[in-house]
């Protein structure tokens, strides 16, 4: 029997999802043995023409990481959708928009203006800005269009499954690959990680506040961090209550709070709103003034509550006049 064809592709991403695949270590040999990789630009030769030449749905599964930031990323994502039976959004950027999605608090004009005109190291007397088409004396040079808004993968193509995390941990990657190879798949649209909150398995759960205890929000650099006590109980913003389990509490193990890279559970539509509600339930305040004082002490609530998930949230982006 022919081996199933598999593609890996990257959009607006950092290469960390590729490293995560290499971190499978000896397991990667098992994967390579079981499948035929038809596309993996970081590790193998890639010919877009070869992908174009495939039958529709000839690729069994495409793993696509990164957010959609440029016209070419959207183009390749659509091509892979057409040629693939299954598409898995791989990692936080494809799943939620990720850290590059924080750019939705700004817009293309502001990014170009700062990067190419106002940055203190820029020396650009002619106020040149990169263009999609440039005529040089030898001919024409082109660049892809840089979109005004960062999109998640499922905002440009239909996505079958999501592998969460920045980057997804090796055990979840292997589980997903095995599930696909054996056809033992959950309902379409599932996130391939346990559907409970991070707090449910956190070693610090025992100290998690059940009722109103927080009188003040502190920032990580302002206080010594207790290595055993729930961060929320210490007054430190930790997105555990609004975040899906499955990461192995990697950040908590380093004595740092969660920032939500796994996104929410299936029962939650908007991770930031869910965290706001969780936080409200543990704030100890009686008057409006007290409440305002506490909420004012949260630095950049929108940025922190939607650290990884702004493009996938109900907000999607800051209103752009």
């Amino acid at each position, binding site marked *: 029997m022919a081996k199933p064809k598999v593609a890996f592709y990257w959009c607006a*991403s950092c290469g960390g999802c590729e490293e995560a695949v290499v971190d499978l270590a000896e397991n990667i040999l098992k994967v390579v043995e079981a499948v035929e990789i038809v596309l993996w630009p970081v590790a193998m030769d890639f010919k877009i023409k070869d992908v174009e030449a495939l039958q529709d749905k000839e690729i069994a599964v495409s793993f696509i990481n990164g957010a959609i930031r440029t016209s070419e990323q959207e183009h390749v994502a659509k091509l892979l959708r057409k040629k693939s039976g299954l598409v898995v959004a791989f990692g936080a950027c494809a799943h939620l928009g990720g850290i590059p999605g924080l750019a939705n608090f700004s817009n293309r004009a502001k990014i170009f203006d700062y*990067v190419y005109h106002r940055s203190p190291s820029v020396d650009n007397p002619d106020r*040149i800005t990169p263009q999609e088409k440039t005529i040089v004396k*030898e001919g024409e040079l082109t660049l892809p269009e840089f979109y005004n808004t960062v999109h998640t993968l499922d905002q440009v193509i239909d996505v079958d499954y999501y592998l969460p995390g*920045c980057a997804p941990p090796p055990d979840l990657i292997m589980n997903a690959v095995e599930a696909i190879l054996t056809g033992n798949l959950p309902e379409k649209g599932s996130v391939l990680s346990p559907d409970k909150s991070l707090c449910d398995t956190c070693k610090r759960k025992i100290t998690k506040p059940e009722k109103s205890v927080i009188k003040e929000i502190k920032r990580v650099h302002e206080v010594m961090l207790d290595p055993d006590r729930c961060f929320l109980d210490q007054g430190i913003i930790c997105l555990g209550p609004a975040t899906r389990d499955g990461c192995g509490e990697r950040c908590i193990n380093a004595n740092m709070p969660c920032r939500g890279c796994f996104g929410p559970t299936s029962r939650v539509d908007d991770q930031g709103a869910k965290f706001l509600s969780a936080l409200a339930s543990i704030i100890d305040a009686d008057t409006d003034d007290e409440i305002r004082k506490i909420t004012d002490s949260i630095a950049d609530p929108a*940025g922190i509550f939607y650290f990884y998930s702004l493009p996938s949230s109900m907000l999607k982006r800051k209103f752009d006049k």
Partner: protein
Amino acid sequence: MRKRITIDPITRLEGHGKIEIFLDDRGDVEKVYFQVPELRGFEIFSVGRPAEEMPRITPKICGVCPTTHHICSTKALDDLFKVEPPPAAKKLRELMYSAFMLEDHTLHFFFLGGPDFVVGPSAPPAERNILGVIAKVGLEIAGKVIKLRKECRDVITLFGGRVIHPVCGLPGGISKPLTEDNRLKIVEVAKGGVEFAQFALKIFEDVVLKNKDYVDLVVGDVYKHATYYMGMVDKNNKVNFYDGDIRIVTPEGKEFTRFKPGEYLDHIGERVESWSYVKFPYLKKVGWKGFVDGVDSGVYRVAPLARLNVSDGMATPLAQAEYERMYETLGGKPVHNTLAFHWARLIEALYAAERMLELAQDKEITDPHVRNIPTATPNEGIGIVEAPRGTLIHHYKTDKNGIITEANLIVATVNNAAAICMSIEKAAKSLIREGNVSDGLLNMVEMAFRAYDPCFACATHSMPGKIPLSINIRNRQGEITQTIERD
């Protein structure tokens, strides 16, 4: 008829780098453009974020070198909040960083840069990859490479919680101390690292230095550029990755200037071209003269060979001996041969391993006091480290509450952007004559490009395998008349 050649190194449309070669009417190379077609805008979306989150935001620039951005950002926060980390915290950061440099440099040699030499620049392309290296050096060695990678990454995880995007850095220290048990484990990893780096240098000697053809290629003119060099040095002018002053030497090897990280804007400017999303840094005090080398051009280079060229030596004994040997062999400082980056990279890997061992054997490193809480009002902070691919600069400004109001980043590979364009153009000019495109062009251009270990959009390097290339030769109407592909 004027022709045009497009090399898309990643072959995919969006790519992380695209090369356009224009031929003149005679068919000789008229002009080469190296384009970076991607941008994400970290400088702008960092604005409004709390400064202490920057070490968790900026690593997402590059998932291959996240430790570099994490440590650089953390150092910028020390400066921003005017807080000095306790001695143990500084040593732990440098220890973690040394493990990272060792891993990254060694991997580059075996997986990416090495195949050009170990398997050979003229070997069939299908063999010029990690599998070819394994066939040549044996499966046992490949196992060693994979083991070292995993061990170094486990060391980074001990501190950072995760190796892809570590999280432990805080202004004034790190988030948790090192236990004695873990210290002992790291000592063993570092010892293995020293052995392995020596072993890699031995392979380099056997395979490259004992082969006259390769030596001719390294010292030949195709890959040579007389430029300025920039890198970080300690107080004795020895190479340092974690902390020190920035030193620049002239194409003749004389000290041009030496400055503190906070003074970088006096020395580095960035040009903008309409045909690339990447900017082109140059030395302000020399001036921008375009994509040319020489003493009058502000183009400079960074990364392993540049660091060795700007320094007076290595701070550890085994690496120092290798440093002396390299300059003896290549005829003294500075070395302008781009392919010598590979040799310099291995010497640095040995230094990283030796430094890792020194730090892990320092008993002070398990001191539980690893944080000082900042008390000053933040305003502006600059952090610089030496990334595997060169000098990395993070510069933040904040309001009095520590909310970012401005962020400027000069990412390591970007420093080399102009020099990479020049190296590609030079290789192309020597290999394309009167419209005849040599079949060796792809390999040779790729080698020019790869010696820098380029990290455009921070993702095109590393990993097992190679950068695939294809060239389309087009006539003036834009029709493809010939296609050359490397499988």
